[in-house]
């Protein structure tokens, strides 16, 4: 179970890192679905309700599919100026390890590591991004990460949030009314 939780945490971290490095719809969608799957795996392995974990995965997947509707086409990975984001991904992981600390020895702690890393990195992306579609993707990831820190209610709420954010359009509006 600990291995599964660790795998889930790492997968979630990889997903959110991909999301933070992507600027176009495919990269965002893939990042988001990877994050959701990783978090769901970690949550299930740490003893949370499997139905809630499955809901989280489903919500994240639905949100990522909806993300493919609009936004910049393509992957948009590792564009110029994305080096700080890459560094941030590593630093956030270290920070999450620091916060979880001795709890890393148990599946719950490992799952928490993944969730904290996802939440922190998604937040950092959200605070620095200017464009709409990456902001929506980061928001969904933030919701997933925060939800994964809680119990069944948190997981369900995260799933709902991810889907709700997916329904918002990622197309840039013209002029001041953006």
């Amino acid at each position: 179970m600990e291995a599964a939780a660790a795998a889930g945490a790492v997968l979630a971290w990889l997903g959110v890192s991909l999301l933070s490095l992507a600027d176009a719809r495919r990269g965002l969608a893939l990042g988001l679905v990877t994050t959701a799957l990783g978090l769901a795996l970690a949550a299930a392995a740490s003893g949370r309700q499997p139905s809630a974990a499955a809901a989280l995965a489903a919500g994240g997947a639905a949100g990522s599919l909806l993300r493919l509707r609009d936004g910049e086409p393509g992957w948009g990975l590792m564009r110029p100026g994305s080096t700080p984001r890459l560094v941030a991904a590593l630093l956030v992981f270290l920070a999450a390890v620091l916060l979880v600390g001795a709890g890393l020895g148990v599946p719950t702690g490992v799952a928490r590591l993944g969730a904290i890393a996802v939440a922190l990195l998604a937040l950092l992306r959200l605070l620095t991004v200017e464009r709409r579609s990456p902001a929506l993707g980061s928001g969904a990831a933030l919701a997933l990460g925060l939800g994964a820190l809680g119990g069944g209610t948190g997981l369900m709420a995260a799933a709902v949030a991810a889907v709700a954010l997916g329904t918002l359009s990622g197309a840039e509006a013209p002029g001041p009314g953006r």
Partner: protein
Amino acid sequence: MTALRAWFRDPRPGWWLLLAGAAGAAMTLLCLLGRPPGTLLLPPPSRVLLAFSAPAVALMVWLAPRGDRLERLCAGLVGLGSQAVLASVPDLLAVAVLLVPVGFAVAARPGRRSLSARVRGPALAAALLGLGWALLRSPGPAWLGRLGALGVALGLVAVGGLVPYLQEVEDGEPAETSYLAWTGFLAPALALVLPFRLLQGHLLTPDEGMVVGAVLVGLGALNLAWGAVGAWRTASLAEAWRDSFLVDWGFALIGLGLFERDGLAAAYLAMLAVLGVRTPLALLARTAPAAGTSPRPLALVLVVLLAGAAPFSGFPVRLLVLRAATELAWPLAIPLLMAMALAAAHALRLARALGSPRGRDAIGLAVVLAVSLVLGLVPGILRGLGGI
């Protein structure tokens, strides 16, 4: 029916906004009824707050230009529903999660600033709240608990858009996408429900409680000072109005942070005053014509209201928070008194901005004055309704 239809004449808002408005109304009703049982639990103070929010929404619709009223109504219902849900969900982590889509929903409305700029505040608030809550409940060293406590306290401050997490204020920004949406409408719901959630089941250790209290009191005092001086001295009138909210919030944060009954009561009344009085006044100020004529008595009475003097809503808040602060440590009362005295300075300025309302604006103003009088004269009844 014809008149009603004429009132809601074209252009119609998008079907999605109509659906969202209906969903908001449904969520409000479900939260009030407490359905499903055990999932949604609206505490009594939040019920009263919701009752005060409805007139604010009604005023926003009333003041809207004719073609925008249905859209404003739908947006207002979404806001009401969001407020109800945020106050009803017992799990604070779930609240933090739900803050994210609510923040995006508010930010997605047409406005001057970009969506990403507008969503930063709520997103940070959600992250602080969620991470803080998670750290509070997870095992670990004492410093981790204190960090969690800090996160929760800062989350509340951030969701209100208060110092040091102030949002940019732009002149001409629509009300529903400006600071009013959070500072003046959604955040008060969270402010009232947070102490209940924190104190339920004695979650906080003394150390963590001290951190929450100290942060809230410290930032409350900072907001009080910033608001009192800023509302008086800042060049922009829109910022002056936003800073005036900081004064009410400052009292509320200090009241919450003192963890005294009188302090909680002060915070409760302050949030009611924000929703029932200050937000409607800020909405009225947006539509008021430039003041040029000699002041009418109604406008002059506004100065007294905005300064927090009796018999209006500010007086019981000041009395209660002073009492709570003096009970704990009398030096705490000194910044409160300075802010109370300084509030008189910005009241003149803000009241002038409201000008001399006429017609429907004057009716709206009279209603706000009446609400403020109720809050100021019989706070005991409202406290009884809220169970504080």
